[in-house]
């Protein structure tokens, strides 16, 4: 354990760097600590998946990077830097320039993300005018090009369609076309396939993988589904209770998980080609809400391997050979208690 380092190794080619990001929400006299000290780096062209269950803070991380959190949210003591510029310190005007042009976002539900009274073409024109300053014929040509790129057949005729005239998969393709219209360096996709059927989900994931190569984008894919994350990501971050509990390559996390939560999550999910006679390993209990900043491992109450130290002290995310885990069982506690 001598080579353990307290944070993710800083990469020279890093595009986005998130350091100690914490977000809490104030509502009805209550404070909920949604994200607690999340750190990670994203290299140029890299795709990372953030996986976790509802309430784990995965979407909040995505929205905090984009600075799209509700006013009730408070971001504290952290840095989010894009190519060396701190996004959290930017004024709203400068941040607007970043959104869409440098970082773009695709939401879960394309029906609510698209304006129902505007046609696909009007959506495209607006985005192209704002991001690229294109108008008229130039905007039309680019719109057709973009719809072609995301695999929409007969794009010229689709430009006059309203969102309700499109199927769910088609709407998500339009959302992706809008997102890539400003040639972003980073695409954040927040549960992009959750509202879609499984055969359409496969199409959209394939589209994202292709766009990543063709447009040389980095991707942050947020999902509750390990399978979805596995299909696209180079690296996977597993979140629980607002903290990253495991951070490693997709192979390491999904095939050789170290954190008890990751293992439990994998064992709880039936595999399509798994053994049917083995009962699913359910995780007892349910994730609670964090009303205090965590002072111990938040998975401890549900953890099958919980030790005394787990409910007393918060385990740090420690990296061994690039595989990060925040667990006392994994890192070892013998005399190594963090003050």
């Amino acid at each position: 354990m001598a080579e353990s380092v307290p944070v993710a190794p800083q990469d020279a080619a890093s595009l986005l760097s998130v350091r100690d990001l914490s977000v809490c929400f104030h509502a009805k006299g209550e404070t909920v600590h949604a994200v607690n000290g999340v750190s990670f780096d994203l290299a140029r062209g890299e795709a990372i998946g953030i996986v976790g269950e509802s309430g784990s803070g995965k979407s909040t991380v995505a929205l905090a990077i984009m600075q799209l959190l509700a006013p009730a949210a408070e971001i504290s003591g952290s840095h989010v830097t894009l190519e060396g510029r701190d996004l959290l310190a930017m004024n709203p005007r400068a941040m607007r320039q970043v959104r869409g042009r440098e970082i773009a976002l695709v939401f879960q539900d394309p029906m609510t993300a698209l304006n129902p009274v505007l046609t696909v073409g009007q959506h495209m024109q607006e985005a192209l005018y704002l991001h690229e300053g294109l108008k008229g014929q130039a905007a039309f040509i680019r719109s057709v090009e973009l719809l072609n790129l995301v695999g929409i057949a007969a794009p010229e005729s689709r430009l006059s369609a309203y969102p309700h005239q499109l199927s769910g998969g088609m709407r998500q393709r339009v959302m992706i076309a809008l997102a890539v219209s400003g040639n972003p360096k980073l695409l954040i996709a927040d549960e992009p396939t959750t509202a879609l059927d499984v055969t359409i989900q496969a199409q959209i994931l394939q589209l994202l993988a292709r766009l990543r190569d063709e447009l040389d984008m980095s991707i942050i894919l947020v999902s509750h589904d390990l399978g979805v994350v596995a299909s696209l990501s180079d690296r996977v971050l597993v979140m629980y209770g607002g903290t990253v509990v495991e951070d490693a390559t997709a192979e390491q996390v999904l095939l050789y998980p170290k954190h008890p939560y990751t293992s439990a999550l994998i064992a709880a999910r039936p595999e399509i080609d798994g053994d049917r006679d083995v009962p699913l390993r359910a995780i007892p209990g349910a994730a609670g809400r964090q009303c205090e900043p965590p002072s111990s491992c938040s998975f401890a109450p549900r953890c099958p391997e919980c030790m005394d130290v787990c409910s007393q002290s918060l385990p740090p995310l420690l990296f061994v050979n690039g595989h990060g885990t925040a667990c006392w069982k994994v890192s070892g506690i013998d005399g190594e208690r963090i003050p």
Partner: protein
Amino acid sequence: MTASKTADNSLLQVDNLKVHFGQGRRLFSRSRWSVRAVDGVSFQIREGETLGLVGESGCGKSTVGRAVAQLLTPTSGMISFDGEDVTGMDSARERRFRRDLQIVFQDPYSSLDPRMRIGAAIREPLIIHGIARGREADARVTELLDAVGLPVSAVERYPHEFSGGQRQRIAIARALALEPRLIVCDEPISALDVSVQAQIVNLLGELQKRRRLTFLFIAHDLAVVRHISHRIAVMYLGRIVETGDSETLCREPLHPYTKALFGAVPRTDPRAARSGDWSVIEGEIPSPLNPPNGCHFHTRCPFAREVCRHSDPPLEALSKDRGVACHFWREIRANTGADPIKTKKAAT
């Protein structure tokens, strides 16, 4: 149409069920329109067995469940429970039937009355059917809560005090109160987190063993359906395209749609996900308002030929439990080496 009419200890028998919605004229239009949500579906479920009904949205799987539970009146077809036709029962017999068949819905947030304490909610069916009252009912409620793994203290609490998984346990306890023989589970775990889904799946399996329950398990998640079901029926646009026992159906799907559906399920093994073992079919699910002629799947099917465009393949029975509705399944099975879905992907 039907695989076999001989009802060997079958508890539920559905024959050529059709449910068409909105039959009528559009305003200012002469043409009649209707959604054929379920268009000639036949299956049977044996006592103590779980039949999984899978398909994508709009395939009519939930409508089948609702028709079976008599929550809507089928357009035509027969549903018989324990040898007795349930469509057009008189009220006394229907009351008896409602005890034998219960339903668990997808959303445990809207299926429980927010102003009713849990004890009262579970007790209600006992009172309505005159099964137990007073102390006896209290004892039954305690026993039911225990059976679904909830503490007795839940009796005095309201639904909002429980998590999604706990609420689904309450809904299951309510369904069990009348000691039904068949439970229709309509997407019972889709609203839950993965770690909690496993709890409910295991609970249902355990209850089935202990109480010899029969389940009609409706879901879109293939991996879960495969895990819980003895047999599976795959639906596409109102029709069953393939049936079989779970193991065989998943190991050797015969219908191109079943193949595509299983191929599209993302694997947690990243090597499998990237090796190209992940087949993707093109195209969208057609609108059930205007389904394609012939085989409904021909617009997306990589094997479709002329005959598929106008002739609707019947569900051909291969054995007692196995059926497939495809003109070319034999050829497709013989040529599995040259699977066009995969070869196409390799070429791009």
